């Protein structure tokens, strides 16, 4: 290695002009309110934030580089680990991108199952957000309640895939296996009671004067700033930008579902809180529609050279055994090309950019995760506000450092 472009060509902005009466405060990387390993360099004047500079990269694992060394189907388990609160959404986005490259037709049942699982994942992600956000503000009880419901979602995932968090259940060409017999009943039982649980959280928080005074008017982000800074998801919709990929650029059959996309115009932490609560109720509606209209039929595409055969077939048919052996050992070639697939995850717009050179390994996998862009807006939201508001704002933008650092 001969190049030496490793040195910083500019110093961090916080280092150059720190005013004499200003104090530079280091927050994190190990701080309970940073939701992971995030370091913030905050320049404060008394208790007022003058500048704020996020330092990231503490969880960088080079996952995009690893993808280039794996076969296409071996990348699926890596995607689980990026945004560890939304495994199904990550699997879905990657699989949709590769399926677009392969121009694979996905059977209806697999599509509906994917929608159902993506929405369960959204509930999972929003529950963690609500619990930890309220905990940051000082309302510890909600955390215990939301984790109770999240536990049931994780149990459903475990029954489905054998794993609680790193599910890898959505595969290229469909799903990894048929859902267990009691799956639909369990989901039905869960969403029957879930709206009451949302009421329970709202009862604890919405009327709570401490909670509302910590959030109302705090962390304002204008619609123009939200677009300019690349903010997506509930944070963007809280600023009044009405855009949701599920509705506006549907994927995986979302166009067949009726749901409402909540927006608010206040652009503060409170708007984001209310939007996520409504989103949870809308997710319940989508799950109910998916349960009611779940089509029958296969859960895997009819592509024996790409999709692993059933165990049963593999043990009785020579052809299936050969395909299994070929897929596991040498993978499958994907036609050359480049695709970008975006989906709406719990945090915002996720995108996978997959470039193929015609071999069995992806030439380049780039992951666009919403937290990375949203973090850029943190300074705009915190500037001129009290230091304690930084904690409320970080909670309200719902970041996961695993997806930011990748």
């Amino acid at each position: 290695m001969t190049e030496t472009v490793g040195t910083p060509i500019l110093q961090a902005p916080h280092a150059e002009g720190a005013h004499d009466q200003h104090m530079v405060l280091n927050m994190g990387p190990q701080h309970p309110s940073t939701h992971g390993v995030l370091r913030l360099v905050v320049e404060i004047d008394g208790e007022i934030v003058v500048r704020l500079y996020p330092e990231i990269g503490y969880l960088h694992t080079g996952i995009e580089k690893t993808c280039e060394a794996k076969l296409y189907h071996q990348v699926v388990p890596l995607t689980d680990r990026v945004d560890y609160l939304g495994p199904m959404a990550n699997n879905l986005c990657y699989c949709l991108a590769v399926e677009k490259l392969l121009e694979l037709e996905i059977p209806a049942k697999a599509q509906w199952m994917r929608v159902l699982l993506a929405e369960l994942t959204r509930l999972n992600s929003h529950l963690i957000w609500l619990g930890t956000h309220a905990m940051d503000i000082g309302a510890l009880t909600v955390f215990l309640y939301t984790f109770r419901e999240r536990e049931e979602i994780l149990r459903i995932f475990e029954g489905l895939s054998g794993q609680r968090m790193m599910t890898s259940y959505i595969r290229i060409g469909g799903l990894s296996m048929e859902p267990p017999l009691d799956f639909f009943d369990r989901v039905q039982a869960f969403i029957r009671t879930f709206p009451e649980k949302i009421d329970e959280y709202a009862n604890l928080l919405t009327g709570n004067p401490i909670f509302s005074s910590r959030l109302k008017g705090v962390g304002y982000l204008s619609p123009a700033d939200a677009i300019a800074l690349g903010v997506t998801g509930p944070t963007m919709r809280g600023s009044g930008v009405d855009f949701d990929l599920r509705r506006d650029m549907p994927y995986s059959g979302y166009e067949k579902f009726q749901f409402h996309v909540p927006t608010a115009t206040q652009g503060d932490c409170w708007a984001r809180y209310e939007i996520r609560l409504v989103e949870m109720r809308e997710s319940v509606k989508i799950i109910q529609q998916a349960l009611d209209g779940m089509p029958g039929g296969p859960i895997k595409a009819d592509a024996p050279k790409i999709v692993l055969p059933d165990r049963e077939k593999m043990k009785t048919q020579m052809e299936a055994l050969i395909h299994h052996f070929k897929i596991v050992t040498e993978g499958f070639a994907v036609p050359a090309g480049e695709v970008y697939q975006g989906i709406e995850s719990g945090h915002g717009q996720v995108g996978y950019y997959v470039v193929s050179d015609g071999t069995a390994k992806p030439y380049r996998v780039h992951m666009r995760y919403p937290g990375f862009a949203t973090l850029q807006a943190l300074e705009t939201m915190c500037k001129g506000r009290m230091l304690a508001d930084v904690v409320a704002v970080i909670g309200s933008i719902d970041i996961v450092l695993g997806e930011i650092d990748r």
Partner: protein
Amino acid sequence: MDDVRNENLTGKAAVLQGLPEHPAVKAILAWNPQAFLDAKWDRQELTLTIAAEEIRSAAAALQAAGYNFFEDMTAVDWFPSSPRFQLSYHLLSHAFKERIRLRVLVEGETPAVESITPLWPGADYYEREVFDLFGIRFEGHPNLRRILMPDDWVGHPLRKDYPVEGYR
């Protein structure tokens, strides 16, 4: 229109003929046809190849034409072929509900292109990431430092001549 959209179109001439009404194609033609090098309509995605030195002004033209949201940007290293690096910008239009890709090819060991951070402040981290992992410089970027790797790291890990296991 729909029939054309289901076919793949390769090359600038084919795209100009097949999608003359596409807002991005119209905007780029109105902006500067000389810097519009190539185009591709593949798997329902439009890719426009722009001359490297004109990327900021092309992005500005598209921003004015309704592609208001900068969604993503990254690079691909085509080592050892030439030109070596490809930059892919993904722009989204909230009004047209459509995404386009701008493609820029750059050459050399330490290539440089104009930064689009002045147009979209949200491109800041993305350009820093490409600088960090590919070693492509962005002129006019306010704070071009490494973002994911440590500041004193040597090399650019996502380059194809950088081993997956790293240097030991």
